[in-house]
Structures are given as C-alpha cells and as structure tokens.
C-alpha cells in the first residue's frame, strides 16, 4: 500500500469519482497492489520467510510503500 502520509493520486481520482456517483459516505480511497507468488509445491515456512524478504527488498519500496501482509493461500 502507498504510505498513509503520502498523496495517492489514483486513490484520490477514484474517491472523486465515487463522490460524483453519489457515494458521499466514502471519505477517501487508497489503492495498493496484490502480488501472488506461485510455487510448484506447497510453500514451506522457509519459503514464506523468503517471500517476506522478497516483498521487503524488491516487490515494495519502503520509501513510498508499506507491505501490509505476506500470507500463504491455497
């Protein structure tokens, strides 16, 4: 997700559109990313730890984004 204190222009554009559509109860919109890593076999604990590292080092930029969660899903 873009960091909370940063302007998120895409989220702002969507929030403005929702206001125009009549959804006045929505005050703000923020847009992030979901990135799926697919494994050949069910990922181990070590794979999850490695994925967390990849998320921190490469998939996100800590200056502008926060990693919200890294989880194993089926």
């Amino acid at each position, binding site marked *: 997700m873009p960091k909370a204190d*940063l302007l998120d222009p*895409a989220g702002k*554009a969507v929030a403005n559109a929702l206001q125009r559509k009549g959804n006045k109860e929505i005050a703000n919109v923020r847009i992030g990313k979901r990135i799926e890593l697919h494994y050949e076999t069910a990922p181990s604990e070590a794979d999850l730890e490695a994925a967390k590292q990849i998320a921190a080092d490469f998939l996100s930029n800590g*200056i*502008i984004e926060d990693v919200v969660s890294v989880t194993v899903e089926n």
Partner: protein
Amino acid sequence: MRIGVVTFPGTLDDRDAKRAVRLAGAEPVSLWHADTSLQNVDAVVLPGGFSFGDYLRCGAIAAQAPIMKTIIDAANGGLPVLGICNGFQVLVEAHLLPGGLTRNEHQHFICRDQKLIVENVDTAWTNQFSIGQEITIPLKNGEGGYIADEETLKRLEGDGLIAFRYSDVNPNGSVNNIAGLRNERGNVVGLMPHPEHAVEPGFGPDTPLAMRSGVDGLQFFKSVINQVVNA
C-alpha cells in the same frame, strides 16, 4: 573519452543520449541491459523511457538487470553515472541515490521546457555550470514527484546533495522543488528533466533569443568530459 549509454527493454532516449554524447565531443558506446561488461567506458548514462514497461515500480526491474550490478560497483568506485528521468528512477531503485519518485501530484503526464536552478557544481556532470545559474531543459514524465523522509531531506539540504531545483513552477509536486540529486562523492547525478534534448540548435527548448535554440543540456556531457580529461 568513451561514454556508455544503457539500453533496457522499453528505453526510449538512448539514441538521443548517444547523439548528445557525440555532439559534446565524446564517443558513445551502446551498453545492453543483459550484459555485464562496461566495455571500458569512462562514464555511463542511464537514459529515459519506460524500462520494463514501468511494471512493479518505475525503474525497479531495471535496477536488478545484470548490467546494473556492474554499474553499481563501478559507481561506488567513482565512475561517473548520469540518470535521466527513468534513469533517475533506476538510480533511486538501485540505492545509488536516496528517496523515491511518485506519480505527479496533479496526475497528468507533463511535457514542457522547464527552467531549473543549478544548486551544485561540484559533480562530474555539473562542473561546467555556475551555482545559481538558470537553465532550460525539457521535462517529460508521469512519475516525477520526488519524495524522501524528513531525515533524508535534512541530509540532502545540509550536505548540498541537491543538484537542481525547479524554477518558476514545481511541475510534479516534488518536495523542496527537487529536480535532481548528486551523491556524496559527486560522481552520480540523477534528474527528471532531459539534458539530451537540449544539445543542438534547432532541436532544443525555446529561449528568449530564438525558437528551439536552447543547448543548456550540452554542459552536462561537457562536464563529464572535462572531469575525465582532467582526472
């Protein structure tokens, strides 16, 4: 004097950068993202464009390219490196310069002749300017809003690491009007505007003297030639 210009998939301004190198008086050398050799160049330019389609984040995938491992090592050893626009984004993603670049505050892609103030001339790429000089360099980007945390900003301001600031207008919401940075050593410079588009009369930005006569960008390349020749 050989200056390498890197081409990544999606790079657009490599040919213009090579042309600028030639007009400044050096020999341009094409470098390919998947290679690891710098072919004994004396300096490297990371040109503008949309490397790897700007996927993930602008410059993030290019920063992991094989040629970048070599360039990061060489830059840490003092090799002059200039990052222009997407090349600036690559330098930031490669941690050769601090901070990050975000989508323009007003959400529009901009393309304009941009006035800049030269803030630092103790670098490989700015030594032919004078401090406080106003220059005009074309700017064209969608994600040029520079940001950094408070501590980093304090360091950038305190240590004189801001190379250029936007003058007249802030075109993209960059903090402290930052248009370009240098590293501590002064060999690495990155900026959003495109000096390679202001190197030849008839093809540059407009000036008060004549249309398209601006050639302020040439001094970036003459600076690095000056530095290498006098090294």
